[in-house]
């Protein structure tokens, strides 16, 4: 299957079309949005579902099997935000807090992008290592902390320990991690008993959620001018670089083609749920227009529409 066919298939999936519907609605100024309470509940569902699945898979593998992928995740979790910060400071001439804030978003996990990659891989008939969801849960934390540490080391940020507490006990982190633990302890049999809610309708819920995300992403484009050409470029190049790195790292860690694609997307993503809240509180001087527009308005749609199939191509090329 060539790259264009992959892209075509991706673009005609209900998920991506749903995202496009959300964008169209926002451009038409139509209020298609789900109520906040429902948006939040669907987010809860997705986090728990992905965690449950990851946890049940984690219970199946030996520590030896995941040692390398786990190490790769940790390394990426620390290096990606530092590299982003350096690029934004040196080449983009961003202020310390703005660079750290954007870096936190590109260093933290986007569970929806992750999920979209899993669904993409699955729809192509490829297997992927199920425990990756469990690793994603651990990737959530370091990215944000590293970025805040960078800002603080330059005396700009706020208290470390309160940020650590906020990230660790943040809703999205706790749901993902909680899901992993429940899935691990309940095992495949236990997860099966809740599969009619947490597994079968999963893609449908993701589609519904993406309609809403499309609306939010498009609303962010208002601020595009505030973002400037450098950050615009960064928002499209960073995922490519990170995705290529992820494809290589994941392959080196022994992941299957499907798994390496998911892993690559895991690194190529930009967070827009956990990171914005943590950054808003820890680095309030940072400009939200910069980090939200780049992560939610640019990188997220890019990954969803074009990035994921591309990272899969990277993996095929590397593993060939």
């Amino acid at each position, binding site marked *: 299957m060539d790259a264009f066919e992959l892209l075509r298939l991706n673009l005609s999936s209900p998920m991506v079309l749903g995202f496009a519907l959300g964008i169209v609605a926002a451009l038409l100024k139509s209020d298609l949005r789900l109520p*906040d309470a429902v*948006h*939040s509940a669907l987010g809860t569902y997705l986090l728990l579902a992905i965690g449950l699945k990851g946890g049940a898979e984690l219970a199946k593998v030996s520590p030896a099997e995941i040692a390398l992928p786990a190490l790769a995740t940790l390394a990426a979790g620390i290096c990606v935000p530092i590299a982003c910060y350096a690029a934004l400071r040196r080449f983009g001439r961003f202020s310390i807090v703005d660079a750290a804030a954007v870096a936190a978003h590109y260093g933290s996990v986007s569970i929806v992008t992750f999920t979209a990659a899993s669904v993409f891989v699955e729809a192509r008939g490829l297997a992927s290592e199920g425990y990756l969801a469990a690793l994603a849960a651990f990737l959530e934390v370091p990215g944000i902390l590293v970025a805040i540490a960078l800002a603080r080391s330059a005396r700009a940020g706020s208290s470390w320990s309160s940020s650590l507490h906020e990230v660790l006990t943040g809703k999205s982190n706790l749901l993902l991690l909680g899901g992993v633990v429940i899935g691990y302890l309940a095992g495949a049999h236990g997860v099966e008993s809740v599969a009619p809610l947490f597994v079968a309708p999963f893609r449908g819920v993701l589609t519904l959620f993406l309609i809403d995300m499309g609306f939010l992403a498009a609303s962010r484009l208002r601020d595009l001018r505030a973002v400037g050409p450098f950050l615009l470029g960064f928002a499209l190049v960073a995922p490519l670089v990170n995705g290529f790195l992820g494809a290589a790292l994941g392959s080196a860690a022994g992941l299957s083609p499907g798994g390496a694609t998911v892993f690559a997307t895991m690194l190529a993503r930009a967070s827009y*749920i956990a990171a*914005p*809240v943590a950054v*808003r*509180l820890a680095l*309030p*001087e940072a400009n939200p227009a910069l980090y939200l527009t780049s992560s939610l308005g640019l990188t997220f749609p890019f990954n969803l529409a074009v990035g994921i199939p591309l990272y899969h191509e990277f993996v095929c090329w590397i593993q060939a």
Partner: protein
Amino acid sequence: MSSSAGSRPEEALVTVELERVTIVAEAVLEARLLALLKAAGARGWTLGEVRGEGSRGVRAGEWQGNVKLETLVAPAVAERILRELAREYFPRFAVVAYTDRVRVVRGEKYV
């Protein structure tokens, strides 16, 4: 104002004039603002979820929305709250704060 509000209709209803401090701020600040109120001496608060627009653009939605916080306090406490807000939050967050006077039934218990 020394007599208690009685069940006998002919008695005057006892009310106390208090400051009502209203704060509209981004929702992520909720926990911190409540801590600020307590530290300043407020004995209670009421909070509603709202949307809004101001100098920092439209604010709506779960984590991008606003909260509207109201607290009935003595004038000195109100002054403390506003001063603290102005120092800690005004420069960096989307916050609006104002006060007015209301007549509170059994208001003694809030001071």
